[in-house]
């Protein structure tokens, strides 16, 4: 079913620790491996360090200690100049969206393409299509301050996936949308995943975690455990039933 699990490794954390300033270690001794083409949820209570962990993954900060390999490159000690090309192979949904308020939804989503030097013609073909798909066909030219919370979140998701990233990192991507939309967005992610994208999604939505039977990275008290898919007790309001191994074919 998956195309891209060639056994290659997309991400490898080894004994990674992170502290802010001189505070305590928010992440302690984190080690895990994500195969290319894999799909993981990242769970854990609020303040456990999920966003911190993801920020290491999307190269927003360096770990205080340990080693992080991304696409087989050591990034914890890499030169600054080596990072932008790596970043372009990522797609990131930030927990706070981080949209540019004075750009239209369309221009926001086009940003990664423009930065990568994609032709305007291609941009104007692909971006509206994707925006329509996430249900924002009518709000293409609206600026973020006039969008609803869920609409902003969908713009942020569209921006993260527009360049078909090799690694998709999403931080609480469904906190502001209804369950139907959340399901639809997760199908989008699992669709990308089937095309080879490695996916990591931090979420508090247990319903989603149960419905999509993907393995979990669970953070608690600074420690990470890799857990199997969550037990299927029930699927509330999430369509017809569980989707083993991800996505409706």
């Amino acid at each position: 079913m998956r195309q891209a699990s060639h056994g290659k490794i997309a991400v490898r954390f080894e004994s990674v620790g992170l502290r802010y300033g001189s505070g305590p270690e928010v992440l302690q001794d984190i080690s895990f491996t994500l195969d290319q083409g894999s799909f993981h949820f990242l769970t854990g209570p609020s303040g456990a360090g999920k966003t911190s962990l993801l920020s290491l993954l999307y190269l927003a900060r360096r770990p205080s200690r340990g080693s992080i390999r991304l696409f087989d490159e050591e990034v914890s000690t890499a030169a600054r100049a080596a990072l932008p090309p790596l970043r372009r192979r990522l797609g990131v949904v930030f927990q706070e969206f981080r949209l540019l308020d004075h750009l239209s939804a369309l221009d926001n989503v086009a940003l990664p393409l423009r930065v990568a030097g994609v032709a305007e013609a291609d941009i104007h073909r692909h971006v509206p299509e994707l925006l329509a798909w996430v249900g924002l066909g009518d709000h293409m030219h609206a600026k973020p301050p006039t969008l609803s919370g869920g609409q902003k979140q969908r713009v942020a998701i569209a921006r993260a996936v527009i360049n078909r990233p090799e690694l998709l990192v999403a931080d609480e991507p469904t906190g502001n949308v209804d369950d139907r939309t959340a399901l639809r967005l997760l199908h989008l992610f699992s669709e990308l995943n089937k095309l080879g994208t490695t996916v990591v999604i931090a979420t508090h939505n247990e319903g989603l975690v149960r419905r999509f039977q993907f393995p979990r990275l669970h953070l608690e008290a600074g420690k990470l455990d890799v857990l199997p898919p969550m037990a299927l007790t029930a699927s509330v309001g999430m369509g017809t039933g569980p989707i083993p191994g991800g996505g409706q074919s």
Partner: protein
Amino acid sequence: MIGFLRSDLPVARDASGLFLPWLVAVMVFLACLALSGAMSLDSLLDRWSRDASGTLTVQVPAATGANAETETNDRVERAVRLLETDAQVATAMAVPRERLAEMLEPWLGSAELMDSLPVPRLIDVTVAPGAMPDLDALVERLRAVAPGAAIDDHRVWLARLIRLAEGLRLLAWAVIGLVALATAAMVVHATRTALAVHRPHIEVLHLIGATDAYIARQFARRAFALALLGGVGGLALSGPVLWGIGRLVQRLEGGLVPDITLGMGQWLVLLLLPPVAGVLSMLTARRTVRRTLTRLL
């Protein structure tokens, strides 16, 4: 990378940018005033110096004894000839008796009296442009042909004026230096403030994978354009003001204040102000963005 050639992202285009041109306009306007003031003073001073050093008056005392009249005339003529052969002298002309009579009238009551008096004669001398004649040597030589000849170099009061104007010029340049410094500081600071608003945007572009150079360019271009716009506005504003000031100056008596309107070269210097502000803003933007970025990883 194609991005280097493509047009700007509209990334820096929000209302906060409006502050930058506004501020640059005011600062360029002030710098314009200061600069044109200093340059006018320069012109004025040059003119005065030239006036003062450019003309001399030679005094030839009247001869006494028999044939005093013709002897005096001879002495004046010899002195004029001596002066005319001097390479540093452009023209030398005896002041006609009539003008002398006019000049003495208040002292002597009537012009007729002068004929019977040993009134000294005067020779107006124009020094060759740029020449700085050695007056002491010249007096020596003049006395050989016209005993008792003396040189009055008109600097009596012009010297004081010149010293005053030189002081003022020094002042004006000091002030223009300060205004320039303040302008530069303001442009730098305004650019930074405008960018502070954009910090989140810089971060997003960075995390999306844009290189430092690419991001810096987006903002530097915009800063250049905004500061240039403001500079042009400030210059345009200073145009009518400088014109009005020129009119004011023209109303002053012409003698002391010659033509102090600005020359072509000086207008060119003023025209340089907006691009200088633009470049300054651009460099600041680039540096600020890069500093923000290096703090990011």
